[in-house]
């Protein structure tokens, strides 16, 4: 590595996390640790019906018997589940505020700092936002417009109250609580998250967005998102996340379930920018997320796009179960790791129905001392006639202290199905750097530009409305290269 490259690396290493501020707000939280009392407490706080509490307690019992999955390429100390707060709400949130005049101005200020205005006059044009602060949903914008179309966009706590039949039917139907320990844990203690229901033949005219923010110290965030797209409907959803800079590790174990019925389409985009820890690997979020979509009906489509730049540890495999004939699953991913970050991320495409198609485009960039692993599973079951998968995963290494790993599992039990997989790993191309610099770009600008070009296939999948916002969130890791 030439000296220029290492200088640029150092520059990257020094880039500070912009969203690391803490909001000084009093929070309301019970004791640390996990037991049936805490779960009952959460359920009571949310005013939940009995069936919900029973479900939670069942999941808790399952969790007690499970141990954390070990197969990922990650190293971290064992998580002490008794040393975490499972519920934290800004004071005064016993009831969700009816409008923003009831919301603590400090909170609104927090979201403004993050570039997410909640005041009605400033709301992001064409984007409905549900903001989740620690364990509770703070505000949902554009609610009126959505209601006119029959679209339900609210916090999951609210949905439990107002749409129990939908929640009962679909919660845990895509990710069974017994799937693995993190899904059982989330099912037992989830605090808030978003719920979306798009009725038959409705194309949601705006992007729906949730913004997650962990503020309180030593708090775990366990949000639960459930999106149901009824026959012939369409919805695009974006999730953004940040957390303050702290030198202890915080746990985030979300579950996201998507259900697309016949002819429906769900587009789910994530720009994940949890605090990654400092240059020495201290602090940061442990992000153990289970995201799974079920293409239940014929001709349905689920598309995941993720830009992962944050977290000390990322363990995340947004997946598609392609059950309906002709259904489509897509996964577009950029994962950038720096310093001592570790990411083990990828997807799982399970082809069950006939003529199902899936596409995977994954771009990994490793810098510093980080470890970046793509793990993907593509399987064709016996009945998946004429199913197809195309996978392309490319890794870029910047510096010789990091690692890039590609671990695909490919399983075919159907002879008319076709899977094509391509992968490459290389360092940043010196010839390209030279060319850019000959045109007057600095070394750092050149690196940014080339890395950005490398990710283009994925970045262009993000919804237009979020282009600016996404760029802001990505800019820290790709300083100067987006644009």
């Amino acid at each position, binding site marked *: 590595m030439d000296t220029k490259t290492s200088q640029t690396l150092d520059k990257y290493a020094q880039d500070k996390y912009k969203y690391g501020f803490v909001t000084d707000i009093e929070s309301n939280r019970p004791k640390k640790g996990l037991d049936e009392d805490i779960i009952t407490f959460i359920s009571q706080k949310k005013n939940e019906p009995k069936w919900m509490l029973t479900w939670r307690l069942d999941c808790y019992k399952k969790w007690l018997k499970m141990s954390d999955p070990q197969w990922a390429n990650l190293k971290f100390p064992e998580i002490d589940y008794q040393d975490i707060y499972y519920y934290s709400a800004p004071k005064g949130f016993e009831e969700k505020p009816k409008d923003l005049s009831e919301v603590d101005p400090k909170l609104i200020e927090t979201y403004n700092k993050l570039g997410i205005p909640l005041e009605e006059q400033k709301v992001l044009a064409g984007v409905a936002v549900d903001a989740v602060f620690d364990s509770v949903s703070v505000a949902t914008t554009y609610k009126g417009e959505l209601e006119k179309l029959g679209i339900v966009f609210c916090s999951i706590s609210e949905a439990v109250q107002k749409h129990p039949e939908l929640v009962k039917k679909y919660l845990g139907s895509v990710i069974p609580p017994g799937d693995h320990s993190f899904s059982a844990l989330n099912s037992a203690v989830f605090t808030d998250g978003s719920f979306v229901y798009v009725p038959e033949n409705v194309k949601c005219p705006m992007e729906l967005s949730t913004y997650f923010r962990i503020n309180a110290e030593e708090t775990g965030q366990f949000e639960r998102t459930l999106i149901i797209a009824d026959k012939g409907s369409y919805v695009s959803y974006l999730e953004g996340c940040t957390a303050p800079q702290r030198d202890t590790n915080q746990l985030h174990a979300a579950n996201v379930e998507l259900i697309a019925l016949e002819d429906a389409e769900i587009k789910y985009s994530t720009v994940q920018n949890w605090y990654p820890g400092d240059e020495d690997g201290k602090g940061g979020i442990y992000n153990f997320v289970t995201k799974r979509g079920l293409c239940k009906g014929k001709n349905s489509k689920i598309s995941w796009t993720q830009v992962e730049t944050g977290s000390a540890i990322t363990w995340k495999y947004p997946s598609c179960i392609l059950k309906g004939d002709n259904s489509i699953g897509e996964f577009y991913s950029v994962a950038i790791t720096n310093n001592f970050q570790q990411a083990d991320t990828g997807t799982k495409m399970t082809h069950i129905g006939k003529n199902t198609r899936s596409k995977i485009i994954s771009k990994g960039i490793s810098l510093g001392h980080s470890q970046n692993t793509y793990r993907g599973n593509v399987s064709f079951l016996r009945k998946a006639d004429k199913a197809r998968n195309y996978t392309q995963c490319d890794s870029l290494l910047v510096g010789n202290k990091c690692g890039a790993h590609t671990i695909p599992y490919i399983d075919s039990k159907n002879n008319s199905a076709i899977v094509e997989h391509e992968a490459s790993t290389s360092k940043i191309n010196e010839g*390209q750097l*030279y060319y850019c*610099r000959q045109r*007057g770009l600095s070394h750092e600008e050149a690196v940014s530009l080339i890395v950005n*070009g490398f990710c*283009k296939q994925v970045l262009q999948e993000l919804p237009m409305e979020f282009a600016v916002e996404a760029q802001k969130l990505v800019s820290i890791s790709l300083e100067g290269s987006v644009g």
Partner: protein
Amino acid sequence: MIFLNINNLNVSIEGKKILNDFNITINEGEVHALMGPNGSGKSTLANVLAGNEDYEVNSGKVIFKDVDLLDLNIEERAQKGLFLAFQYPVEIPGVNITPFLHASINSKLKNEKKPEIDNLSFTKLLRKNAEELGISSDMLKRSINTGFSGGEKKRYEILQMSILNPEFAVFDETDSGLDVDALRIVTEGINKFKNPKNSFLIITHYQKLLEYIHPDYVHVMRNGKIVKSGDISLATEIEASGYQNF
């Protein structure tokens, strides 16, 4: 002002000596042609001028516009007005020319303490120059050099030069791989750009190019040094009987 002076330049790569006490002086507004057989070190010279870090400068001096060029890094040289049209322009997938060249020209303007050019004016300028070079707007939308034919790549280089407005441009075999029509377009582009303030070093294999661009001087290079200098008649001589007489 000394425009460009190369004095006893010795260069090696991986321990192998390539340039051997190389000397040349180029003044403002002059066009020089450099000819020589394959492997004589022409591209090496071009790359050493541009600052390619693969080459090791063992000794010698290069003065460009009164400063020691060898003290500058690649981008500083470019910002100072040196442009290299590459023999083999590299493909950069996913990167579009518009933001790329916009950043590029602004880096130069900033270096010259001039105001930067805004997005709109830049896009207009780019379109206009592209049209003159017969580059379609479709081609402007593609990633840099990606999937371009040899001729398209060369035209793209000239387009970039026309935007960046360098004081000193080095063309490394820009003519090779071009058919007659493309050669005409490229040379027209170069001729149009030529003025009393800027200078060219044209590296070529064939006399053909020099029929379109009239050089003030022609140099013949062999084994890492200039063995003969003269005017256009040198090129005719080479065309007739090759390099063996040099």
